């Protein structure tokens, strides 16, 4: 009896200690879980109140006549819609369950934003706009009703957000669909009835259908694609690469995925893609590590220009650059009859250790480049300069074509000037005289960017 009295006592003590520790861990876990669920609940309730605000605001737009002071209502729809999208995407639901609902919120908000802008520009709200607003209102009303039905279930305890989170994790791990998110799925299905929305903004459905303009129609075979990339890439010294088509690519610019593997002298591999139509190199990247910089930015620009020139990209002007990890990234745009074409951009990465072009991207150029009729400006350069802030010291003015966020193009004056030692680019429409855009030039030791 006495022999094992002491060990037993020690054992019991340890057992108590471990038990206490386990209890503490358990309590912490419950606390964290409650905290997480509260965050999810907050997102859910915020979502409801924002969708409700949207419904009411959209109803109001049907009552107003579209005067400048009504822009506030439209701006507030945008604010509520963006907030609602944020809340929705923070719920523990997989993206397929919320996709259409999120899209509805985004488009409704974006449409309202564009209308606010149009009204400000003196445009009237058309009959068609009222029809669209009415559709958006009905859709928001339906969403609001369904969310309130769901809220009742949550309040009754028939639906729990933590259950959703657990089921979602399960689904991710096992790849099996669960029925926990059925309520949300139902809402998303109802959103399917929402018609495609075409308007002058970045989330308009017409942008999904945009096709590349600058490809040509000559079809390319896999064998040709392989050789096109091998001849196109910039190779230093006597490096020898074997080219091989690894895959077909089915995107907006369909084509071939090509890999160049070094045979001798070269390090790493070069991957890129060549378009099916026209046989253009869409992009390529060399994965080699870049050593200590030896070239200046000026030398690198000259290298990039020479590269573009020899690959058939003529009259390209360097618009901005950035240096990161020993690689200078230059953006170029073509100049035509003295007008800079911003939509047709190409990117060139120059390694600053030996001047090799380690990256090239012509996606923007191939999507946008076409034969353009460059119009004559309706307003003069001096008239345009009067439109900018009078405190700005204008340093230069030139004609440019800039892309809009809805996929169209504006013909504008680019007026560069300084206020308080900071540089700004103001774009004044050469046809209407309205301010299209204002960009701030960001100059750092590592490059120049616009934002």
């Amino acid at each position: 009896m006495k022999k094992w009295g002491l060990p037993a006592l020690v054992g019991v003590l340890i057992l108590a200690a471990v038990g206490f520790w386990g209890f503490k861990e358990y309590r912490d876990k419950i606390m964290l879980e409650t905290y997480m669920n509260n965050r999810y609940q907050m997102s859910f309730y915020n979502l409801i109140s924002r969708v409700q605000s949207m419904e009411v605001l959209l109803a109001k737009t049907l009552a107003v006549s579209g005067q400048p002071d009504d822009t506030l209502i439209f701006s507030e729809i945008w604010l509520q819609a963006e907030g609602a999208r944020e809340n929705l995407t923070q719920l523990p639901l997989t993206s397929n369950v919320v996709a259409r609902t999120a899209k509805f919120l985004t488009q409704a908000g974006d449409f309202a934003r564009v209308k606010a802008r149009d009204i400000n520009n003196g445009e009237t709200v058309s009959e068609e706009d009222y029809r669209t607003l009415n559709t958006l209102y009905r859709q928001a009303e339906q969403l609001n009703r369904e969310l309130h039905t769901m809220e009742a279930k949550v309040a009754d305890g028939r639906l729990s957000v933590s259950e959703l989170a657990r089921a979602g994790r399960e689904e991710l791990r096992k790849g099996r669909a669960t029925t926990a998110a059925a309520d949300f799925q139902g809402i998303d299905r109802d959103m399917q009835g929402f018609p495609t929305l075409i308007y002058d903004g970045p989330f308009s459905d017409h942008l999904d259908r945009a096709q590349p303009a600058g490809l040509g129609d000559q079809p390319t075979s896999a064998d040709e694609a392989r050789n096109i990339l091998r001849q196109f890439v910039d190779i230093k010294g006597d490096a020898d690469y074997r080219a091989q088509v690894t895959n077909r690519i089915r995107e907006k610019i369909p084509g071939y995925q090509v890999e160049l593997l070094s045979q001798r002298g070269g390090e790493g591999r070069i991957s890129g893609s060549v378009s099916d139509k026209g046989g253009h190199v869409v992009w390529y990247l060399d994965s080699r590590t870049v050593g200590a910089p030896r070239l200046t930015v000026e030398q690198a620009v000259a290298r990039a220009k020479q590269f573009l020139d020899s690959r058939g990209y003529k009259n390209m002007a360097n618009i901005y650059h950035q240096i990161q990890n020993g690689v200078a990234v230059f953006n170029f745009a073509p100049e035509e009859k003295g007008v800079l074409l911003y939509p047709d951009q190409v990117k060139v990465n120059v390694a600053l250790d030996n001047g090799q072009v380690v990256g090239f991207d012509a996606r923007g150029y191939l999507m946008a480049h076409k034969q353009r009729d460059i119009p004559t400006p309706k307003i003069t350069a001096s008239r345009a300069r009067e439109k900018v802030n009078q405190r700005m010291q204008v340093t230069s003015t030139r004609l440019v074509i800039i892309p809009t966020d809805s996929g169209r193009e504006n013909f504008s004056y680019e007026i560069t000037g300084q206020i308080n030692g900071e540089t700004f680019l103001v774009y004044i429409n050469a046809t209407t005289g309205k301010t299209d855009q204002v960009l701030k030039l960001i100059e750092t030791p590592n490059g120049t960017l616009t934002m």
Partner: protein
Amino acid sequence: MQWEDKIKSRWKIWVTIFSLSCFVLGGFLVYQKAFAQDTLYWGRSGSKVRAVQQRLKDWGYYRGPVDGYYSGQTASAVRKFQARNGLQVDGVVGPKTFQALGLYTPPKKTTYTTASRGFVSNRDSVNLLARVIMGEAADEPYTGKVAVGAVMLNRMRNSQFPNTLAGVVYQPLAFESVANGQYNRPLDPEAIRAAQDALSGYDPTGGALFFWNPSKPVSRWIWTRKITSQIGRHVFAH
């Protein structure tokens, strides 16, 4: 009687085993907490141990082999060194001993480049993107890393996803490596470069919104998406 004795002794054995394992477990937990930092002690091995041994050998405290194994000989050399340099004599190489040995590398200070006026930096985006690339595509070829970064940015510009990079990265149930914390691994230079290339506009996927590894279990609905390309082990889709 004999049976009873046997049961008693069995009991004793069990209690002993149990208390021993509790001790080991508890000790291990304490040990882990105390030495979670980069501290070298008896039994450790690796390149840092080798560096310490080399330094101690150069300075005449240590006569054993520079083999990267923290032996008793190493520990006594460390003790000698600590005694000579007014450090706490414990035979453990902590931050202070590291510093005294001249092997302490201060955490890298990040310098931000600022414009003459205003402060704009994309370092936050580069870091966040690089971490997800580390978590999701650490073993993928370089293009596959850029592609994963591009998917994040494509989502950000899409109406069906959050409209900020952090929103996309931290969307619940979106990325496994974010959910299980694996994306917090230290970054390697290639991931950072891939993040920068993706941010400057390179998109090997041509606008893909999804990617997955076909050899792992995934939701069935994901196969309904339109596949655009395959890079490394990942399939990319709209």
